[in-house]
């Protein structure tokens, strides 16, 4: 079953980044191949949140295990996604890696800038809306991950134009 998640095997057609982006080339099969473990991690993260919110006296080790399981599952996603990227042809692999780098760097920049602005008291001073305050977003692990994804798609759209 695990081999179905990856891109090797019988299919000799190179993987395409557009297959996991909503559009005419979107393929559920490709999306499952690349991202199944991400969906599993998201599901387990939700289950973990529900478990930890139960009125039960979890000890520290149990809480840590529940919290870390989605992150460990994410490592399997990284492996699956990497194999999927390696199944692309060289131009799309390069494009995808450039977009990944762009997404990561821009997210780091935004997170750092946000933190510095927060430290400088910009949000408290009312210059920027208080709902942008650091603590209301960055406490959720999913927020920086979502930012990376958004900037990945932005980066992909930018770099793709170079080869069209």
């Amino acid at each position, binding site marked *: 079953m695990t081999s179905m998640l990856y891109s090797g095997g019988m299919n*000799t*057609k*190179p993987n*395409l980044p557009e297959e996991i982006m909503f559009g005419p080339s979107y393929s559920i099969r490709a999306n499952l191949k690349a991202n199944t473990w991400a969906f599993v991690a998201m599901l387990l993260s939700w289950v973990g949140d529900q478990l930890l919110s139960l009125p039960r006296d979890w000890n520290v080790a149990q809480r840590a295990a529940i919290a870390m399981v989605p992150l460990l599952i994410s490592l399997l996603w990284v492996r699956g996604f990497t194999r999927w990227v390696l199944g*692309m*042809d*060289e*131009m*799309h692999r390069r494009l995808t890696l450039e977009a990944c780098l762009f997404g990561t760097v821009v997210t780091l920049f935004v997170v750092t800038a946000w933190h510095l602005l927060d430290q400088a008291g910009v949000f408290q001073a009312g210059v920027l809306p208080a709902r942008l305050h650091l603590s209301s977003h960055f406490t959720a692990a999913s927020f920086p991950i979502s930012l990376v994804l958004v900037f990945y798609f932005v980066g992909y759209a930018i770099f793709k134009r*170079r*080869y*069209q």
Partner: protein
Amino acid sequence: MKNRLRELRAAKEWSQADLADRLDVSRQTVNAIETGRYDPSLPLAFKVARLFKIPIEGIFEDE
């Protein structure tokens, strides 16, 4: 980098998709190479050269 890929492909009466299949790349990559927007790696350039039985310098030309 300029190249004669489109001309060589046309001589064989192959579509971009046909050539892409033979090179194990996507059609978009063939198009990007033909229009000069993407320079192939050395292994891919060798593959192209082997496919058309022409030396690399007979297909790709440095501008």
